[in-house]
């Protein structure tokens, strides 16, 4: 760029290319399939060793829990929901950004989502798997989970369909199924490409089965694209419903700090916020490790940072409104809880949460910071920390000072609590690493469709769709 006071002249009237350097279609295939076809570097195995070690620690902690019982955790009355439910809400929230990117941005015709959608969707599935573990572990006797299904028990009594906990099971299992279908439908053409690329007979058999004999036929693409839109349309309200229902678990109770109508939108915004933080974390690692910087460009990170900033302010609005309503309602118990959160035993957590979720993301107003990968990475990690703490603060501070002062009790986690949390991160990142080696991390068929000159009819001004 020309020398002067302005380092870089940016033409905002023209959208930046979605794929940098105008590579050929087969070059894109090669680049995306590379992690699957070549032995990965030592970096990959070191990362896998670390995540597997975390996972092993988690498995040991789970073994302790099942052998000795839930007493190994710090939970006790009145703080009966602590790490387990915090982690559940945290992981479900992480998952929502994946659906937001793959479904909502698709409906809004945001074509930059193409490069990141596959990873985000995979993240959704892995995060929901992690989330699903926690209610199971919290049961202590995980096989009793079967009683939440609509099966009459030995006395002929059905489950309570009025209970948010039952809605939760319906919502999360529907969400997992629909996300999995959405992901799989998107994968079919890529699996077919891999089927035709591979030279190994075993891989070919596996890819043939998984790609169900996809033929890239235009008569198929036509219906396929329609179904993709329909699934996106179904998944979009699903995201909102799932996290609203998760928030009902709290809001339907009568506990101060939980019993507020703002919870559903507040939780949905928080979920998207934490999810974008995690997508940024994962993508920055993936693009670096597999050298995909020209497909997942800085423009992508820039746009995600903008969304993160927006959602951060929605979360900040909820943070402001909560104490306001507590004060405005004139309910001394509610107001006491607000003061407790800010100055009580868990005040440090509250202020770290506020800093990470409200103040730190304000840095994203600056273009330089949005396009600086290391700073963005640190910010994304801080957002993860902040959003985990948010759920912890909501759950623990509301419970540890409930209506009966004689029951007041401080909560402190044990090593088993931390072990299971670390184990869930181990599981998540192990799955992400295995995914990046076995399936295309970027949708080949979609990324080909957003290269320059992919759609000649558009240049001719012809109608499409």
């Amino acid at each position, binding site marked *: 760029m020309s020398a002067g006071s302005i380092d870089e002249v940016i033409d905002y009237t023209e959208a930046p290319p979605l794929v940098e350097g105008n590579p050929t*279609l087969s070059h894109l295939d090669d680049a995306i399939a590379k992690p699957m076809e070549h032995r990965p570097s030592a970096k990959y195995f070191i990362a896998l060793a670390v995540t597997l070690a975390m996972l092993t620690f988690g498995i040991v902690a789970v073994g302790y829990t099942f052998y000795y019982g839930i007493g190994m955790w710090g939970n006790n009355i009145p703080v009966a929901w602590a790490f387990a439910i915090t982690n559940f809400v945290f992981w479900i929230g992480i998952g929502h950004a994946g659906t937001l990117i793959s479904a909502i941005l698709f409906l809004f015709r945001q074509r930059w989502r193409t490069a990141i959608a596959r990873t985000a969707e995979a993240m959704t599935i892995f995060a929901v798997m992690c989330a699903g573990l926690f209610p199971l572990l919290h049961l202590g006797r995980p096989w009793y989970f079967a009683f939440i299904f609509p099966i009459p028990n030995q006395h002929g009594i059905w489950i309570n*369909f009025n209970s948010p906990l039952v809605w939760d099971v319906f919502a999360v299992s529907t969400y997992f199924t629909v996300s999995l279908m959405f992901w799989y439908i998107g994968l079919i053409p890529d699996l077919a490409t891999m089927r035709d690329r591979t030279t190994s007979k075993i891989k070919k058999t596996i890819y043939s089965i998984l790609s169900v*004999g996809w033929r890239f036929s235009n008569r198929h693409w036509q219906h396929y694209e329609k179904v993709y839109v*329909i699934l996106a349309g*179904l998944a979009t309200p699903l995201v909102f419903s799932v996290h609203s229902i998760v928030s009902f678990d709290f809001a339907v109770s009568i506990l101060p700090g939980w019993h507020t109508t703002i919870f559903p939108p507040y939780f949905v915004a928080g979920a998207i916020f934490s999810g974008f933080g995690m997508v940024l974390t994962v993508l920055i690692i993936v693009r670096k490790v597999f050298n995909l910087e020209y497909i997942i460009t800085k423009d992508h990170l820039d746009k995600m940072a903008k969304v993160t900033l927006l959602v951060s302010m929605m979360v900040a609005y909820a943070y402001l409104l909560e104490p306001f309503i507590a004060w405005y309602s004139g309910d001394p118990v509610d107001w006491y809880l607000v003061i407790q959160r800010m100055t009580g035993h868990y005040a440090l957590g509250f202020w770290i949460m506020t800093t990470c979720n409200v103040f730190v993301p304000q840095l994203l107003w600056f273009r330089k910071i949005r396009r600086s990968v290391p700073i963005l990475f640190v910010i994304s990690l801080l957002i993860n920390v902040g959003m985990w703490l948010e759920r912890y603060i909501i759950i623990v501070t509301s419970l540890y000072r409930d209506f009966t002062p004689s029951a007041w009790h401080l909560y402190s986690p044990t090593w088993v609590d931390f072990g299971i949390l670390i184990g869930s991160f181990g599981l998540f990142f192990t799955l992400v690493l295995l995914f990046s080696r076995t399936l295309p991390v970027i949708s080949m068929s979609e990324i080909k469709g957003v290269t320059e000159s992919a759609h000649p009819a558009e240049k001719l001004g012809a109608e499409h769709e």
Partner: protein
Amino acid sequence: MSERTLYGITALFDAPGKILDASKAATSEGYKNFDSYTPYPIHGLDNVMKLKRSYIGIVTLILGMTGVISLVTFTWWANSVDFPMVTGGKPYFAWPSYVPLMFEMGVLFGAVSTVIALLAIWLGLPRNSHPLHDTEFMKKVSDDGFGICIEAKDPKFDQKQTESFLRSLGAVNVEPAYYEAQSFTLRQLVLDPKFIIAIIVVAVVSSATVYWGLNKMLLIRPWSSLNDQEKVLPETRSEFYPDGFAMRPPVEGTVARSQMPYEFTANDLASAGKYLANPLLPTPQVMRVGQREYNTYCSPCHGYFADGDSRLQGQFPSPPSLHTDSLRLAPDGLYYSVITNGFQGIMPSYARQIPRDERWAIIWYIRALQKSEHVEASVAK
């Protein structure tokens, strides 16, 4: 290779623009059974090929609504018909509570059925035996080629003419595609012993798993230390004591709580009359208990008003009236002794049926009955 059946003629192009032109040309030439193959969906191709709009959304709508309706019907039946139960003071059919469930089931049914309908019905998949699979054409198309295939079943199809037509469009590569030499009928596939064995194995394993899960797994006793404690429970067997019981018989003379034994010998009416006094006061409550117990246990023989007019006359000997002067003046202890021990082998003991305090309450009630028939004239006025 002449015995193989021809599927169609394939042609490859190297740019998305060319496939648009080629498809347009094939349509205007009058070909109907042809298809374009592209690594990604190219916009505008549907118009050029004159494809009808996809109506697959109707599946989503119908099956999604089916999901909603089934959920409503099911929750209504489960909570209002099969096992009506009130939770949280709501009506049996609390439909606002079911709205989240309705939505979830609508989405679940809609999404799953749409995907299955797309793959199985609209696209005819899974099908890995299509003639175009494992051809150079397919390998190119799945990577960066843009292909067209005119099928042999098209009425206008003629191998030579079609080939030259495709070449004239500027195709890079024109190749015929054949069906596989060997094919199986559906009957052969279904009756294949391997297939039958696989079906049986799947059926046995899945039903055994479901049976085990519902009938055994749910009833597993947890191995928690709360459940399995090192202690003996009542009514269990023990190897420790010679009599084989875990529980010990009580020490000789042990009295159960609130069960004071009778103080005198059964026939010693005089001592009972002399030393026992009614421990209760004649409160309305005591009188009510006395009345209830008297009417239950005493009235069948003694009569509701203690006149001795037994309702069981002829079956049991009739007792005397309790309104005689000697009985009216008899001490409370005497009555207590008679109720507790019975009388001369005619009236049985009621100690088992009537607890101690209720016996005393009965005595107060008898006193009231006696007074009721001996009211002094001045009081009656």
